[in-house]
């Protein structure tokens, strides 16, 4: 039964994926893409990877989707949203099929699974969720760099601003109609989201959730608030925003260095201090990730509300 269910789900995923690639119109493709992300999150849940499912839904489907939608909107205003219909491309089809078949073959050629034995290590990690343990303890270096990547992407994005617009508020001007849906939505949603986000971070230590998932939710809250004019649009020149950006990675780095100074090495967490340390790092990271994601979505400062 479950096999049929999974096969149906996979067929659906493939169908929506195909629609994303082959369908007409960029906008529709974006919608398909978001749908695809959500379906995939279900798939992850079917696989039991709830952390991934959450990340997929929040980041891949949610944030990437919002990014693409916003971009599509801007492109439409720039009259660059149209595209040529898909023309069959035989070489591309060949290599695509080749790669897919090769991967498929590789699946069947995989030797017996060997996974590192974490049973001894997990209790030392300070957290109950093994995924969080891996992310923030065993492979904390990856995660640190990952947070830095996010930051780098933001700096890179800012570099796409025009020089004369540098001091402008970030992103396009949104003016929510006073008393409109957005305005009231913007007042109601943030507190709920805030709580949910913080919960995700906290829960991440033991159950599903974590800094990135939580940060995404917080970012969404933040975005809505900005759109609703609850929060003023940030400017690069405002030190608080920049401080918020580097806060998480900074804390992470510092704790790593502290590990080198006080414990057995860089990024080392003594088991007894591991949990509070991880929670602290996660909290700081969440804040920074949220801010970074917000700023990534609203984009570089723009000129006087006009795109052209």
């Amino acid at each position, binding site marked *: 039964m479950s096999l049929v269910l999974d096969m149906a789900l996979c067929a659906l995923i493939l169908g929506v994926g195909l629609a994303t690639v082959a369908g007409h119109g960029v906008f529709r493709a974006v919608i398909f893409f978001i749908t695809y992300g959500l379906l995939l999150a279900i798939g992850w849940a079917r696989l039991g990877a709830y952390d991934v499912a959450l990340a997929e839904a929040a980041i891949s489907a949610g944030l990437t989707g919002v990014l693409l939608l916003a971009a599509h909107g801007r492109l439409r205003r720039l009259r660059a949203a149209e595209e040529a219909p898909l023309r069959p491309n035989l070489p591309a089809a060949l290599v695509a099929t080749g790669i897919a078949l090769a991967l498929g073959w*590789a699946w069947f050629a995989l030797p017996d699974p060997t*996974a*590192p034995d974490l049973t001894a290590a997990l209790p030392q990690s300070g957290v109950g969720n093994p995924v969080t343990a891996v992310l923030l*303890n065993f492979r904390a270096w990856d995660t640190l760099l990952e947070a830095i990547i996010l930051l780098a992407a933001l700096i890179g994005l*800012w*570099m796409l601003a025009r020089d004369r617009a540098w001091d402008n508020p970030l992103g396009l001007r949104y003016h929510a109609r006073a008393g409109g849906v957005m305005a009231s939505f913007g007042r109601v949603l943030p507190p709920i989201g805030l709580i949910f986000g913080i919960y995700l971070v906290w829960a991440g230590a033991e159950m599903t959730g974590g800094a990135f998932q939580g940060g995404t939710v917080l970012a969404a809250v933040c975005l809505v608030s900005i759109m609703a004019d609850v929060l003023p649009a940030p400017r690069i020149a405002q030190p608080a925003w920049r401080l918020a950006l*580097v806060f998480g990675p900074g804390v992470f780095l510092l704790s790593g*260095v502290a590990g080198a100074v006080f414990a057995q090495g*860089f990024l080392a967490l003594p088991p007894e201090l591991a949990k509070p340390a991880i929670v602290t790092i996660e909290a700081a990271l969440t804040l920074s990730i949220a801010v970074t994601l917000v700023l990534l979505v609203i984009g570089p400062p723009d000129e006087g509300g006009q795109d052209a």
Partner: protein
Amino acid sequence: MTALISWLVLPLFAALAAIALPSRARLPAALLGVGLTVVASIWLTIEVWNTGAVTVSLGGWRPPIGIALRADGLGAALGVMTALVMVAVALAARHELAAKVAGPRIGFGFWPLMLLLWAALNAVYVARDLFNLYVGLELITLTAVALVAISGKAAAIAAALRYLLFALAGSLLYLAGVVLTYAAHGTLDISLLAARTVAPGDALALGLMTAGLLVKTALFPFHVWLPPAHSAAPAPASALLSALVPKASLLILLRIWFEAMPELATPMTQSALASLGALAVIWGGVLALLQSRLKLIVAYSTVAQLGYIFLVFPLAGGDGAAQPWAAGAWTGAIFQMLAHGLAKAAMFLAAGIYIAAIGSDRLGDMRGLARALPMTGFAFALASITLLGLPPSAGFTAKYLMMTAAFASGQWAWALVPAGGGLLAAAYLYRPLSAIFARDTALTPRPIPWAWQTVPLVLAALSVALGLLSSIPFEFLQIGRPEQAAEGL
């Protein structure tokens, strides 16, 4: 170990500081970070020299659970080269990309991007984990793309987007290989992988990773993104992009082919890679010959120069790794990486000075610039010597070691590549040189501060000095080398 960690985190801290601090404190913080990181890199080098390769299991978690870092001779040497280039770039950027000159946007963005790139490079140089390498590579890619786009010109945006497209395709291929490797072996640590039992899917994983890394290294025929990208960036950024960025993916290629999966390196694939390298030498050289802008010439020269390094696969890879000539070939390839890094950075910084002086890098406009800017002209000439592989530069040492290995291993045809490539390099570098040193001047240059002019000169001189004093680096590079051949040829 402390040296290694500080070498890794100092640029990160500096980058964060550069982001967070107000504009007047940004430059001092960045420069302080640069200085401290240089010290750290020298410290690390000394430590590696004294005690051999430095290995660290991060967080105290040994692979396969955690991530290990290992600074061997190769990584540390690249680290020092990177530090030198970074200092030079920082000193040049102080003038060229100051907020007063280049605007507040570049004045803000360049420093964190540069420092983040540095951190990422350092991370890649010592990483032993394939996924960690992927993360490092992505950080490099994103910062590099941002540096391409930083000038804000339409051409730069297009070039950056194209670069990103190619690079992301490469990343995905690499990631696919990583996925297959972990699925098959449950570990991503290079040392552990070296001891694995070969799985059938390893060939596919290796092929995918290699192809992905080739794009990032801009090997022919995937070099096309490089010249527009490197020429569109401001000169200090170009220096970073050309001198350092391709080296990272190249290093990963070396790690995989020589350390993680050496038994999969068969003559046929090695020859295929080297053939692409040879083609790159020719193709890059010919196209450099056809350009009329200095930065494009220099960028195409990067395509050509990177090609040499791929000769290392047939000369020192696979079964050949245990042969007596392998040390020479291996070291020669790395000398080429180091020499090219220094010389190419010098060239781009020199180009930056010219652009600052006359506002153009067209060869026709650059006529006679050596008169007003003799040190820069001299720097460019010295760097050319290295790229040509003329003695006593490090480029020559590299060429010599590789050619010797080619003959010693009986694969003399590969020796044609450095020999012919040098001639091609002479041909394409002759044009800018003759323009710079022409008697008549096309444009009257703006004065350039003396301190700025010395920067490329010092770099270029270093690339020559590396050849003059190559015995110590040679020995250094043997530290932690996968196959310890006692003595080269």
